[in-house]
């Protein structure tokens, strides 16, 4: 008996002592450390790749909370487009119902998260020893990309918040992280521009390996620099009297006095970008058949990485841009919500370059330019490649970019598509094939138009085709217009101004601008050209802001056709009547987004933007 007892206790003792000393020190196997990441030529570029994934998904104009990054709220908040989905953040903008605590698209958080990653990358990448997998040149290029991305994300912040804290290093938990303040806008711009310069020696001029498309290049850095300097020269930031008293708690002015020479700087930066881009082989996109102006223009946006493109946001999957623009009449389509406004439709020129509409009467009937040949009554007698006979005269004989950008009633949309081509024209009236189906249907084009530009002509909704799209952040065409605008502001309509605007027009077969324009007339022409050429590329939102005209363009009613009355057909006059879609609200405070309240609560040294 005793021996059993003894054995029992002996075994307990053995059990207790046989257990490993680090009984409590069991931690996960295979953990990754910072050291491992930045000493591995495989992991280090993955860290960089993750930073790219935070570039805003601007091809997504409808909020998508499932995405790890922010989407494009700007288009829906500009007078180019009305997003027919009431939960969309742009709707809050348009109704003026946003404030420092309502944030659906958190650009602040997304950008600063990305900026920390770039800093961490830059502070550690030198640990990587060059190898055959990643030689010094490759490592340098990665470094350049990270410097570019850090500048890029600061620009993402500055373009909506204005002055922001500049974060050029990682912040540790044990330091006084409340010592950071918002920097004056000129400091922010200077930082972005200087960082672009800093990145230049590390970056390739153009992407040469097909597997690398999407990476930042020297030209992309030059384009970013030119864009941010253009913004700096523009009235919103350059000596804006509304902000002359906008100071932080220490009395530091956050917007500088006006300095007209900033236009000169901007012009020089744009010219430098253009020259170096062209030297590297970039050119305005010309398709195999450049005479097909419509197709040529369309292709810029879906022939990925064509010669005109500097920098993109690559897609990982089929973007909803196609689905949200697909007319309901196509099998499987049910989200036709990206609806261009009548205001934009009216702005497209006639095929001969004349403006069809010069203004509006009090009842919103258009004042038609008599020499344009534009007509809102009657229907086209003959069909063209773009529309059927019987199409309203409004849509007849417009410039090529109209047909490449807007879906309208009567259009032959995807008639020549290889897969299940359509044989009926688009019909946007209520109960029409593509119109609102009934009163409770929420998703329909609220203006009677749908987006065509940026979509892919071969897209099929059901079964959904997986078309990989890239969103163009910087392209040569924009730089032409940047240069023309800045140059006109500093030197007036000199020949280079004409040259670059006319290059844009010539590509789509439009005549050049009339000679002898004044600087002011030229400014209007350039602004008009930007609106058309760069439509739906988010430029409109930022242009109206930086020109300080948003208080006019975004503070009025948005019009469309009468899509809510049933019983129309293609020839119903009442259908084409301009009808209010939304009464938009814009107050001066809306020029800058409010800094999120949750951030101000944490650091009282941050000041809120004026008016919020």
């Amino acid at each position, binding site marked *: 008996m005793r021996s059993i007892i003894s054995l029992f206790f002996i075994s307990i003792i053995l059990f207790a002592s046989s257990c490993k000393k680090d009984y409590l020190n069991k931690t996960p196997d295979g953990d990754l450390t910072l050291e491992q990441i930045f000493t591995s030529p495989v992991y280090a570029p993955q860290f960089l790749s993750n930073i790219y994934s935070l570039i805003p998904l601007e091809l997504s104009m409808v909020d998508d909370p499932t995405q790890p990054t922010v989407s494009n709220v700007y288009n829906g908040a500009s007078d180019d487009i009305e997003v027919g989905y009431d939960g969309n953040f742009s709707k809050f903008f348009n109704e003026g119902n946003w404030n420092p605590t309502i944030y659906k698209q958190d650009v602040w958080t997304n950008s600063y998260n990305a900026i920390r990653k770039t800093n961490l990358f830059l502070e550690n990448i030198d640990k990587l020893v060059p190898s055959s997998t990643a030689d010094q040149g490759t490592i340098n290029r990665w470094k350049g990309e990270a410097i570019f991305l850090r500048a890029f994300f600061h620009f993402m912040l500055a373009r909506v918040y204005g002055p922001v804290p500049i974060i050029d290093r990682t912040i540790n938990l044990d330091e006084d992280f409340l010592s950071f303040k918002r920097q004056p806008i000129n400091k922010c711009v200077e930082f972005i521009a200087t960082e672009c310069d800093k990145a230049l020696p590390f970056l390739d001029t153009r992407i040469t390996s097909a597997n690398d498309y999407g990476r930042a290049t020297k030209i992309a850095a030059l384009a970013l620099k030119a864009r941010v300097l253009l913004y700096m020269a523009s009235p919103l930031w350059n000596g804006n009297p509304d902000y002359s008293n906008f100071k932080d708690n220490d009395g530091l002015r956050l917007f500088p006095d006006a300095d007209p020479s900033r236009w000169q700087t901007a012009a020089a930066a744009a010219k430098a970008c253009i020259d170096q881009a062209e030297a590297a082989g970039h050119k305005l996109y010309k398709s195999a058949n450049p005479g097909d102006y419509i197709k040529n223009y369309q292709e810029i946006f879906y022939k990925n*990485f064509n010669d005109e493109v500097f920098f993109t946001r690559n897609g990982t999957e089929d973007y909803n841009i196609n689905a949200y623009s697909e007319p309901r009449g196509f099998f499987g389509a049910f989200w036709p919500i990206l609806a261009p406004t009548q205001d934009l439709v009216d702005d497209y020129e006639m095929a001969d370059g004349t403006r069809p509409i010069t203004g509006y009467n009090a009842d919103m009937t258009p004042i038609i330019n008599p020499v344009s040949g534009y007509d809102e009554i009657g229907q086209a007698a003959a069909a063209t490649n773009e529309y059927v006979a019987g199409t309203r005269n409004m849509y007849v004989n417009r410039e090529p970019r109209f047909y490449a950008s807007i879906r309208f009633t009567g259009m032959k949309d995807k008639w020549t598509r290889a897969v299940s081509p359509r044989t009926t024209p688009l019909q946007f009236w209520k109960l029409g094939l593509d119109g609102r189906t009934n009163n409770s249907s929420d998703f329909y084009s609220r203006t009677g138009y749908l987006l065509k530009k940026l979509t892919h002509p071969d897209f099929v909704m059901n079964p959904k085709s997986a078309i990989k799209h890239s969103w163009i952040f910087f392209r040569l065409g924009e730089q032409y217009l940047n240069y023309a605008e800045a140059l006109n502001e500093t030197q007036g309509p000199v020949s280079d101004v004409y040259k670059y605007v006319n290059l844009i027009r010539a590509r789509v077969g439009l005549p050049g601008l009339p000679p002898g324009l004044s600087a002011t007339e030229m400014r209007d022409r350039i602004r008009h050209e930007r609106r058309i050429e760069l439509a739906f590329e988010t430029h409109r939102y930022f242009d109206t802001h930086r020109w300080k005209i948003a208080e006019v363009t975004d503070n009025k009613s948005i019009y469309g056709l009468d899509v809510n009355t049933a019983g129309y057909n293609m020839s119903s006059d009442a259908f084409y009547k301009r009808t209010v879609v939304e009464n938009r609200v814009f107050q001066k405070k809306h020029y800058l987004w409010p800094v999120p309240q949750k951030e101000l609560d944490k650091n009282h040294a941050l000041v809120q933007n004026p008016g919020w």
Partner: protein
Amino acid sequence: MRKLLNFFVLLLLVVAKEGYSATPPGFFQNPQASWVLNGLVVDELNNPVASATVQLVGRGSSTKTDVNGKFLIEVTSEADSLAVSFVGYFTNRVRIGNVKTITIKLDPDVKGQKLDEVQVVGYGTQKKTTMVGAVSTASVKDIRKYSTPSLSNALSGRLAGVVTRQTSGEPGYDAAKIFIRGLVSQSGSNKPLVVIDGVERDLQDYWTTINVQEIESISVLKDATATAVYGSRGANGVLLITTKRGVVGKPKVNFRTEAASSTPLRVEKVIDGYEFALLVNESRSNKGELPKYTPAEIQKFKDGSDPYAYPSVNWYDVVFRDHTSQAMANLGIQGGSENVQYYVNLGYTLQQGLYNDDPNGAYKTNAALKRYSFRSNTDFKLSKTFSLNLGVSSIISTTNFPGTGKDRIFDVLKLTSPVESPVKNPDGSAPGGTGDSKINPYTVITATGYTRQFYTTLINNLGAKWDLSAVTPGLSMRGLFAYDVVDITQDIREQSPGTYKYNPVTKTYTTINTQGDLGYRTANENYKKIYGEAAVEYKRNFGKHGVSGMLLAQRREFVNVNAGSSIDNLPSRQQGLVGRLNYYYDSRYLLELNAGYTGSEQFPKGSQYGLFPSIGAGWLVSNEKFWNTNFINVLKLRGSYGLVGNDQIGGDRFLFLTLFEKNAAGYGFGTNQDQNIGGKSEKRLGNLNLTWETSYKADLGMDMEMLNGKITLTADVFHERREGQLLRRQIIPIYTGLASFAPFANVGITENKGIEGSFQFRNTTKNGFYYSFNGNIVYAKNKIIENDVPPKQYPWQELRGYPIGSNLGYEAIGFFQDQADIAKSPVQTFGPVGPGDVKYRDINGDNKIDNADLTVIGKYGSEPQIVFGFGANFAYKGFDASIFLNGNANRDFFFSQRNWTAWAFSQDERYNVLQEYYDHRWIPGQDNSKAKFPAIRASSQNNYQGSTIWQRNGSYLRIRTAEIGYSLPTKTAKKVLVNNARVFIQGTNLATWDKIKVLDPESNFGTGDYPIPRTINFGLEVSF
């Protein structure tokens, strides 16, 4: 003090070396000639008492009486005394004197709250008289009065200081939430530690499924003295459960069977189709639109003349049965010889759910629980000094559920209006529509398949005890090994039902959804736990000094075997040392020191271990010489202070490690955007200073017995400050790029204080009528001291100083009377408003109602501050009766803020509407002075903001149990060959008084859950 110190030194020496020669006289006496005392223990009716404990006071030897109440014990001194104790009786102390035979009579102590009994405490037992900790015990007899398969429900109101709330009645998931002295942690778990038969056993809340009949005692440890031994595990209090063991004697068989009929309580009452149609028209009228239904159509809803085109269905009636059933049976056998004692128990529980089955359906879908529980506790005495105890228990249950989860069923009940569709189409097929009404509630419960859940729990203990009196008297060692497994396997048979839309005009059907095949998949969860401990104990009296001590080492490993991730799959481990030292002087002064030194793998190397000491002291005033009142027989004052930890701090595991995400988002480079090389990113910043929550607990208490035990009273005042609560750092600015994965840190602080008390009065009249009253109450008030939230822009949004679980919302100040009222009131920015809409207070006075006007609404938080229970027991001859009520007060209740709640058309004239809303809404042109709810206005954004309009007083009082029983007189019983036979009828949840009325007051915030039942239970209990 000096004396005390000397004594401790002495004690150590004694332990070190047996028979220390400098022992003062009186400490040890030389062994004298001993003799065997032959004794008999009888009860008040002179019936022998089997298995009473007979202890030779101060000598460490003890025995138990046999089945005839007899015992033999070796006695060495005439001065020795015997202490005879038996559950339910006062312990009787008898000085032996110069006798060889003795008969000892025990006086009954029918109710449990005696001060003079043995109490289970952490890692051992203690006499109630010598305890200084705050511990309360529930009478197992009372708990058995609640006929429920979930133990936690039976505890409600029974234990002073224990807060329970049953939120759901779903079979298998009807366990109550349980907290001890209310909520204290903002972020970590507030669940008490549950210790069963000496081992921490909270595997998937296994303890709530324990068969009530197997339980010997339940007690709850509350203050630092009682819980410090659990170190970093004990801060939330400890629930101790011990199961029955064998006794020496002939087999005693106890058989109990009971069957109950249960009725769902507080099933939501909703309006009918006629009222719904009227409401739609009223909504349109309020919005200035034309009515949707013509009077003729409304009439059709009313008279049901066209039930397919104009249905009027009460989905709750369709889905729920009026009543259901529950049955339990239990067979227990107890017995044993001097060397082997056993307890074997087999239980069976059948609990039917409330859902209707489709009589023509291919399978049963009603929720139903079938549970077998088995337990065997055996004690072996291998030698005079060495004994083993083996406990084996298993619970096997099979539960059936509809193919759609409970939450979805209750969603669909709210989403489907009475006019949405008929229950079935004319041809018997299932109707279907679009969107939310694609499948109606009846189809959801009957035709979406079913799930069968198999729950298997195995609980095993092997313990050993070695009496080392041979080394030095009072010394013993013991060891315990436990191995528990829980396996939950589900066979999931899902089916997509076929639904068809019937057109009553054309009498045609359109297929909405084609019927799918009955699928099959399984899901498995599996947990195992290994626990081991070894202890040395010492217990001895030296004249007026009594000493006991314990040192224990323990180790625990828990593994989630079938975890979803490799980190969760890693074993969680704790180990530690526990020490306890008690000192008593002259049965007057009590001192207790406890310490737990425990380590947990949750924390970084080097800071894994923490010491949690506590000190408690007591004064038995009534044992002082100056105490000569007969009115108060026992008065004890006690106090304690100490530190206890909580390592259940929530969040992920290994929070001290900095982690990088291996599978972060990458980016598709390349012409085809498919050159995604993958991504790496920071995932978590480790906090190397991570530690447990620390609780500073103070407790002052008093125990009192009056009128010779007729009245007992216990009262405690307590204060707890819980520091170091793990919160994600909220004050780190976003621009650091750290905010999204900010580290966790021990920054939260809360305070909890309150009082609790319990009392009992009992008496037996001369003619044998027994009656007793008892009650208990706890009032615990917590508040947030630090939550690491940056100071709010608006001070009225600050949650510091408010209870845990407080809400921000708008303060409703009534309804807009008319357009003029709207015009002169601040602008409400949530959307259009009209007369009858909710009007909110403009807190910041900017003449605009927006989220700057959000403020803290409610005062008490989501759990009650006051919980109480009281009841009475009566017995006369063979009859007995009891009633028990419990309730709570100071709890805020909010109807759900979710936008599709049953509260009328928050969406587009759809969804079910509560009768309560319909009856108390604001109606244009009527006297609305008593309106409780806003006017009907479909999809109103304004009215469905979280606000005080949805707030109710959550207090309630409930007749929790009532019981009437009759026992056959012993003689009659003997005739039918049983020792004892009793029939009883019990009722639970018989009546409720509260202010919510439409939902159960115990439910979570929201819109109701699976109703809890009212049961009427008949039973028979026989022992032979």
